[in-house]
């Protein structure tokens, strides 16, 4: 069984991002970039399925600028077998990403596509569900446990009040939640090996996809800042102030 794992290059989650002074977006020049953390969980899950003998090949796909190849290399070092880079400098919104991934899936014919549940830059949480819709596949979003058995899989999902378990026929889409697994660090030998793994380069036009954005960002502003309040000296003072000053208890 082949697994496709889309991986996104995003501003590293440890970076304190800043809104550009002209309000056109977030400052990304000279900022450390990494693989979206939820996509690391997706790669890890695919590698574990291969280690269990469920998967035979893992293809990591990234869409965007040439440096996305580095993100693919990270996935290859974790255990993916080969990569596909769809290279463009155009802005790609989730609908366009889903269409490009559908075109790749049509070529590659994977049985399973595992994606992160959300990218930590645009926080849209949309691509996996949209790809499932375009392929006409069932979806199991926010997965915390995956068991594949023959032509079906059972997935436990993180929902608002707890957990929900669903059973889906393959091919299908999974999006990963935080507790699905803990991604491995790539070992040095695996990083060296990853350099030799192939990455195929494509362009959106090769895939026949119109990637024009449907959302125009008019401006990006800083969120309203909260001011630090006061320090209180004791629990008694805290309770008293919550009662008489803030009047919230």
């Amino acid at each position, binding site marked *: 069984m082949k697994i496709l794992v889309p991986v996104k290059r995003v501003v590293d989650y440890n970076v304190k991002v800043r809104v550009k002074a002209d309000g056109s977006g977030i400052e990304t020049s000279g900022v450390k970039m990494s693989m979206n953390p939820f996509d690391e969980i997706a790669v890890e899950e695919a590698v574990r399925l291969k280690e269990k003998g469920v998967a035979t090949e893992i293809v990591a796909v990234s869409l965007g600028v040439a440096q996305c190849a580095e993100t693919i290399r990270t996935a290859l070092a974790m255990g993916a077998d080969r990569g596909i880079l769809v290279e463009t400098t155009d802005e790609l919104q*989730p609908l366009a990403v889903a269409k490009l991934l559908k075109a790749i899936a049509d070529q590659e014919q994977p049985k399973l596509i595992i994606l992160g549940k959300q990218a930590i830059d645009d926080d849209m949480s949309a691509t996996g569900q949209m790809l499932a819709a375009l392929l006409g596949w069932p979806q199991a979003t926010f997965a915390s446990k995956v068991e594949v058995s023959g032509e079906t899989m059972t997935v436990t999902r993180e929902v608002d009040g707890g957990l929900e378990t669903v059973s889906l026929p393959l091919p299908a889409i999974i999006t990963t939640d935080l507790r699905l697994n803990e991604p491995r660090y790539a070992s040095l030998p695996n990083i060296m090996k990853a350099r030799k793994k192939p990455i195929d380069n494509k362009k959106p036009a090769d895939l026949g996809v119109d990637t024009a954005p449907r959302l125009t960002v008019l401006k990006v502003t800083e969120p309203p800042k909260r001011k630090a309040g*006061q320090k209180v000296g004791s629990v008694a003072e805290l309770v008293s102030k919550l009662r008489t000053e803030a009047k919230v208890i």
Partner: protein
Amino acid sequence: MTSLVLLEFDANGIKQPSRSAVAAASALGDVHVLVAGSNVAAAGQAAAKLPNVAKVLVADSPALDHLLAEPTAALLVSLAPAYSHLLAATSAVGKNIMPRVAALLDVQPISDIAAVVDADTFVRPIYAGNGMATVKSSDSKKVITVRAASFDPVAADGGNAPVEPATVGDLPTPGKFVSAELSKSERPELTAARVVISGGRGMQNGENFKLIEPIADMLGAAVGASRAAVDAGFVPNEYQVGQTGKIVAPELYVAVGISGAIQHLAGMKDSKVIVAINKDEEAPIFQVADYGLVADLFNALPELKAELERS
């Protein structure tokens, strides 16, 4: 211009985040709401009482039980021609279904809106709320999820809308519901609670959350947690407040043993009053707290319990 809002409900009626979605839709024009599921007549009646609602559509079908994404999205797509905007709360259900609807309609979804500027233009958080993006959609139909914490919910009653059955065609049901394991708690839901008390890595283990629970019960509060506490396995993921968990905006938020990572602040910084209890006076949480207490939580929590019991 008419919007259709997909509602979520339980035995107590229409959920608060869905009522916030109705509030957001009210800013766009007429509002119809959709109650979908199996044997949902009672929820349809509850929906009819919501203010600002012009019509309730009830889709009653075994295929819609548990609101699985494939049949529910197909239903929304079949109803979409009559509407300019399709909305749901940014909940596990809304996030699961609405992007699927959007792709089937060839529309870019607008996730987690925090404000309505006009019929095409919305404000939504990006980068864990470190930026607020104003975005304008060129799609003829908008598919939207609504950040409940940013819109005051409409009341649970006061309206009297007509209830109509929705036409339910053949719905795809490739996936099967197997089971649900929902936390049984007498406490309010995190996203609807007036008071939230959350514990972080400083709690040291799950057992110590028992120090928080009686205080939560005295205050009628929901219990939450930081991602660090969830990652460490102290409490289940549904407790998580933050960028990748739940977004809350209660009257009072009490952060106990939480340092205040950006991604946690993203989930609670719109709370009206924030209290931080942390032994590290340099902890970033104090920069957003209205009241900060530098103290060891293992002393402060029992003291807080005693202080609240005293009166």
